[in-house]
C-alpha cells in the first residue's frame, strides 16, 4: 500500500497519540475553578504557549477551534461581520479564487446572505495572487473593503503565495488579511508575527495531530463576531468547552512540525522531485500543475493533469494497485467536478478533468515513489482508453 494522500490527512505522530491518550484519562473542564479544572486549564495554556511558539505567535493570539474549516469560517464571516458592523460601507470581500471550500463557500455565503460583494483576485498560471493585484483591487475603493483572504499555500496544486508582501499591501490600507495556512504549517516557515497577517488558520490532523482540532491565530486588535455563542471561552470569540486531549496532542504535533520542518521539507521534497521526474518520464504529455520551481510550491505536493483521462478513472485504477492519492477536486453528490483551482489557473475544462494530486508525509518512503513509477504509464493508458465520459 502506498499512501500518497497526506494533504487529505496524515497519520498521527506517535508523540501526539501519546499526548492525547495520556490526557484522555483525566477529567476536568478547563473553565472549572477546582483542582481538576485547574489541571485541565494548565494543560490547555501550556499547549497554547507551545503552539504559539511554534507558529511565531503570542499565546493570546491562539484561538482553538474544532478544525480548519471552523477557523476559516470564523475568520471570514467573523471579521466581515465585525468590520461591516463598525462601518456599513465595508462590504467588499477580496479572495483568491483558489481557496479551499472552507473559505470559498463561506465567502459565497456572505454574498448570498449578508450583503457582501465578493471580488476574486486574479491569479497567474500557477494559481498565485500577486501583491499588485491585491493593491489594485483595494485601491479602487479602500473604504469599502471588509477583509481579504488569500491562502498561504494551495492544497491542490501546492502553490505558495507571497504572504508577507500581500500582508504589507493590506496593512498599508489597514485592511485585515486572513490566510489559510492549513497546508503550509509544517512545510513552510509559518511565522504569524513576521507574516503581518491579521488572522491565520491551522489544523491538527494535517500535521500529525488529531482530527477535530484547529486554531485561528488572531491578532489581538481583532474581535470577529463569533460563530458560536455560549460560555465565552477563547477570548469570547469561540465558545465551547475546551477539548483538552486534542489541544495537548495538537500542540505536541505543532512543536514537532516546527522543529522538524527543514529536515521534513528536504526529505519529502526529494521524494516529490523523484516522483515528478518519474511521472513526466513515464507519461510525457502529463502536465505538472502549480509552480514548477520547487521554491514556489509545497515540498510535499505533486499535481498532474493527464490529457484525455478522467481523474476518477485514474483514481480507481491506482486504488486497485494499492496506491492511494486524490484527484484534488471537490465532489458534488460524489461526482468529481473539474477543480476550481485548476480552472482558475487557466487550464481548459477537459484537461482539468484528468488531475491527480500526490502528497507526501512523515511516513512516505522511496517505495511509495517506486510504486507509482511502476504503474503510472499503464494506468494512464488504460484511463485514456476509457476516455472522458
Amino acid at each position, binding site marked *: 500500500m502506498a499512501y500518497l494522500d497526506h494533504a487529505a490527512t496524515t497519520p498521527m505522530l506517535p508523540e501526539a497519540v501519546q499526548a492525547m491518550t495520556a490526557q484522555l484519562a483525566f477529567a476536568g473542564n478547563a473553565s472549572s475553578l477546582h483542582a481538576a479544572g485547574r489541571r485541565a486549564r494548565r494543560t490547555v495554556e501550556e499547549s497554547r504557549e507551545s503552539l504559539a511558539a511554534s507558529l511565531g505567535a503570542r499565546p493570546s493570539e491562539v484561538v482553538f477551534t474544532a478544525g480548519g474549516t471552523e477557523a476559516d469560517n470564523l475568520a471570514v464571516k467573523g471579521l466581515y461581520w465585525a468590520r461591516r458592523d463598525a462601518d456599513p460601507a465595508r462590504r467588499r470581500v477580496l479572495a483568491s479564487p483558489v481557496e479551499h471550500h472552507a473559505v470559498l463557500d463561506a465567502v459565497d455565503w456572505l454574498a448570498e446572505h449578508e450583503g457582501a460583494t465578493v471580488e476574486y483576485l486574479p491569479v497567474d498560471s500557477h494559481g498565485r495572487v500577486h501583491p499588485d493585484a491585491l493593491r489594485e483591487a483595494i485601491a479602487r475603493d479602500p473604504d469599502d473593503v471588509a477583509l481579504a483572504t488569500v491562502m498561504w499555500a494551495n492544497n491542490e496544486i501546492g502553490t505558495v503565495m507571497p504572504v508577507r508582501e500581500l500582508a504589507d499591501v493590506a496593512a498599508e490600507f489597514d485592511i485585515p488579511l486572513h490566510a489559510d495556512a492549513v497546508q503550509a504549517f509544517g512545510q513552510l516557515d509559518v511565522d504569524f508575527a513576521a507574516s503581518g497577517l491579521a488572522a491565520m488558520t491551522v489544523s491538527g490532523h494535517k500535521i500529525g495531530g488529531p482530527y477535530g482540532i484547529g486554531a485561528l491565530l488572531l491578532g489581538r486588535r481583532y474581535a470577529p463576531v463569533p460563530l458560536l455563542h455560549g460560555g465565552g471561552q477563547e477570548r469570547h470569540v469561540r465558545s465551547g468547552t475546551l477539548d483538552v486531549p486534542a489541544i495537548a496532542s495538537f500542540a505536541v504535533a505543532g512543536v514537532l512540525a516546527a522543529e522538524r520542518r527543514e529536515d521534513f521539507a528536504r526529505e519529502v521534497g526529494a521524494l516529490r522531485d523523484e516522483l515528478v521526474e518519474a511521472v513526466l518520464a513515464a507519461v510525457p504529455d502529463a502536465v505538472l500543475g502549480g509552480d514548477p520551481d520547487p521554491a514556489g510550491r509545497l515540498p510535499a505536493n505533486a499535481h498532474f493533469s493527464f490529457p484525455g483521462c478522467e481523474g*476518477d*478513472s485514474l*483514481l*480507481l*485504477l491506482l*486504488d*486497485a494497485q494499492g496506491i492511494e492519492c486524490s484527484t484534488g477536486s471537490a*465532489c*458534488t*453528490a*460524489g*461526482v*468529481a467536478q473539474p477543480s476550481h483551482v485548476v480552472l482558475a489557473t487557466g487550464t481548459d475544462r477537459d484537461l482539468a478533468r484528468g488531475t491527480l494530486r500526490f502528497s507526501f508525509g512523515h511516513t512516505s518512503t522511496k517505495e511509495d515513489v517506486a510504486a507509482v513509477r511502476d504503474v503510472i504509464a499503464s494506468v494512464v493508458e*488504460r*484511463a485514456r*482508453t*476509457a*476516455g472522458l*465520459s
Partner: protein
Amino acid sequence: MSGGVDSAVAAARAAEAGHEVTGVHLALSANPQSFRTGARGCCTIEDSRDARRAADVIGIPFYCWDLAERFREDVVEDFIAEYEAGRTPNPCLRCNEKIKFAALLDKALALGFDAVCTGHYATVVLNEDGTRELHRASDMAKDQSYVLGVLDEKQLAHAMFPLGDTLTTKDEIRAEAERRGLAVAKKPDSHDICFIADGDTQGFLAKHLGTSEGDIVDETGTKIGTHEGAYGFTIGQRKGLRIGHPAPDGKPRYVLDISPVNNTVTVGPVEALDVTALTAIKPRWCGVAPEGVGTYTAQLRAHGGETSVTAELVGEELRVSFAEPVRGVAPGQAIVLYDGTRVVGSATIAATDRAPANAAHSG
C-alpha cells in the same frame, strides 16, 4: 448501485462469489437536487449515499460516474421527442440499451473490468458453444427480462444478473440484505420514471413541450372536446379526457389515436382499441436474428402478460400478428419476443392494425 436493495444484494452476491467487484453509482443528473428527492428513484444524493454505504459494508470500492450528459441526450431527450411525436416510450429499456450496457459497459471494459453486474431479475444462460441466452428470471413474478430485451449478444456476454437465477421473492431479498447488514434492506422499491422528480409525467412533458390546444374528435372526426397538448395522451387511456359529456351510447371512451401533426386526439369505444397485428422497427436480437415466420409469445409492457404471436422479420421491420386481439398497444412501446423463457429479441412498435370496427361489433 442505485442505492436500492436489489443492486446492493447483487453486488454482495457477486463479491461473495469471488469476483473483484467495484460499486458504481450512476449520476444521471447534472443537478441531483432537480431530480427526485426522497427514498425512491435512482438520482438523488441520498441514493448515492445509500449505495456508498452498502459498498462499504460489502467491502468493495465505490465510485460515482457522471453519465448525466449521455443520459440527457440518449434517454431524457428521446423520451420527450417520442412523446412529442405521439408515441409512448419506455425510458428504462432505452437506459439499459444506451447507458447501463453501453456507456457504462464500454467504460468498464476499457478500465479492465469484465462485466456489468446489476440487480435486474433475469437469467443469462451460457451455451456449450459459448453463445449466451437471456431468459426470464426463475421467479416470473419478479421477472425483468422485458426491460433487458434490448441487449444484443455482445452486451449479454458482459452482463451479470446475480438475482435472476434463484427463486427469491422480494421479501427474501430484503431478508438477505438485512442478514448482510445492508441498511437499504427496508428501502421502498423504486418505480415510475427516475428523472421525473414528482412522478408527474404530464407536468414534465408540459414543461418541456409547452401547451398547445387541439381537438378531441370521435371516430367519425366530429369534434367533441379540446385538450392542451396531444403528447399528454396515451393510446388506451380512459381517464383524464375531460370531454364533459358522455358518448351517445353511454359507453366509456378511450384514446384510439394521437396525431401530433394536426394536434388531434381521437377517442372511441373500447372495441376499437383491439389490435390484431403490428409493425415494429429497430429490432435488436439476443443472438442471431430469426428467419422466416416464427411462433412466439410476446410481452408489450414492463408488467404486462404474455400473448401468442407469429412474427416475421422483413428487412429491418418486424411484422407481428396476434392470435387474439390485444388492447392498449401504443407506438413507441417495445415488443419483446420470447421462445419459452428465452428472450429472442425486441423491437419498437411503429404502427398497429386495428380490428375492423364492424368485426368488433358483430363479434
